[in-house]
């Protein structure tokens, strides 16, 4: 059990750092619902993978990435609002997943585990993959940090200054899809959105400048993760839910240090 807790903590540590950086831009661009949409797309992907006999994370990952590109494309070219497209992807993926699983007789997976996280499903392989995926995602967001800042400030200004706005827009969602798929094992489809929103919200309460917002976001994520894993072990509670509840309490506590009004 201790080994599982350590593995879960490691996966959480690896993933929470890049997720906090992504959280900053997601909150600043008012696109928090996108995380919900992409996370739920995984459910449809897992169901399709099950139907096709592919139980690895590859199929959910592909499904998630295609969904995020679809959301981006329809927003950019279709003239629809992001929220409306995300909602369509969200309900389609959930309906597809439930439809397929309800027909399947031999499914031995744990749907509740998918939705709310299943600490027992974290393996050594997940730890190694999480490390590499997180490192690459962190490298990506750090390399293009000032590019994303300019895009978030004003897209036209970014284009005039030679920033490949559309390319980076799609890359943002693709890399985020990968992070989300890996995070789902730990905290689940429904709760993963907490890590896309709460780090930035805690950071905004506790810091003045953008660097402080992100650094405090990272610290709050780590605190919620490590604390949540430990509490869930000693209290025998669901890990994902415990982590998110702790994160929520941290957010409430952060109001005591509020700098940004």
């Amino acid at each position, binding site marked *: 059990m201790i080994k599982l807790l350590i593995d879960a903590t490691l996966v959480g540590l690896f993933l929470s750092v890049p997720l906090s950086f992504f959280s900053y831009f997601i909150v600043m661009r008012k696109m928090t619902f996108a995380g919900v949409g992409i996370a739920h797309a995984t459910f449809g992907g897992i169901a399709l993978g099950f139907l096709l006999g592919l139980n690895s994370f590859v199929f959910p990952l592909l499904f998630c990435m295609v969904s995020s590109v679809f959301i981006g494309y329809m927003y950019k070219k279709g003239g629809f609002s992001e929220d409306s497209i995300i909602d369509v992807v969200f309900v389609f993926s959930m309906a597809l997943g439930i439809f397929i699983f309800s027909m399947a007789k031999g499914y031995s997976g744990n749907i509740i585990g998918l939705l709310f996280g299943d600490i027992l499903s974290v393996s050594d392989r997940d730890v190694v993959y999480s490390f590499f995926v997180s490192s690459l995602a962190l490298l990506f967001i*750090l390399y293009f*940090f*000032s*590019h994303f800042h*300019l895009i978030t*400030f*004003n897209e*036209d200004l970014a284009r005039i200054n*030679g920033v490949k706005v559309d390319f980076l827009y799609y890359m943002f969602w693709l890399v985020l899809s990968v992070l989300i798929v890996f995070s789902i094992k730990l905290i689940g489809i429904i709760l993963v959105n907490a890590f896309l929103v709460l780090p930035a919200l805690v950071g*905004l309460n506790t810091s003045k400048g953008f660097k402080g917002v992100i650094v405090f976001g990272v610290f709050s994520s780590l605190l919620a993760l490590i604390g949540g894993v430990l509490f869930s072990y000693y209290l025998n509670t669901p890990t994902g839910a415990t982590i998110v509840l702790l994160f929520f309490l941290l957010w409430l506590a952060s109001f005591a240090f509020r700098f940004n009004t």
Partner: protein
Amino acid sequence: MVEVKNVSLSINGKYILKDINFEIKKGSFAAIVGPNGAGKTTLLKIITALLKPSSGWVKIDGVEPEKYLRRRRGIVGYLPQKAIVNWNLPLTVLDVVFIQDVKPFGFFRRYSDEMLKLANHWLGVFGIGNKKDELIKNLSGGEQQRVSLVRCMVGKPELLILDEPNTAVDAVYNVRMYEILRKISRELGITIIMVTHDIGVITEFVDEVMCLNVKLHCHGKPSEIDLSRMLNTVYGESFGLLLHREQCKNCMFGVRDDKTSD
């Protein structure tokens, strides 16, 4: 400096801009006026290669806008409409001043002494030298616009494209801002194309006025254009125009132009 030839843009058969022709010389300060939906911002977007015209072409310094923009970052100082800028980012004034200076791993960047000197100079020129460490979202709307002008200037531009720079700027600083812009164009030779609704005041400061409403209805020096009659044509209705006249230096908002009182 900026040459616009036979530029038209139509969407679903409706003309947004039709057969626009003009040339603006280097170092000139030009204002584009016209009603809402006249195509003013669209024209600026075509000049800055953000939009492609359905027909016609634009050249800046003899080359297509895309090529011109690739010469170096900051060569065009662009001030977008205030409403489409995200002012809620947790950025200080200095962060915004250098936001278009994108670099790999920009999260770890520090501002060099040379950059700080440049920023301090322009922040001082625009009267916000004491605000550089404040969060941009805590500034007033008018101060935010001044920070945007500083951002344009630290890029050492050859061309300034300003889309309603006086939005949220108070009446007193409005005049001061136009004075600074005129000085920038004359002393530094920077070409300025500015969209504004501030018809009454700008005639005193700009070298050229363009009246736009899908078509270009006038283009010339303010003194050469019967502006009030032309604006009645462009706006499609008669209105009283308050012009800032030479003989009325002490009038903050100018006097009513008798020609428009019909």
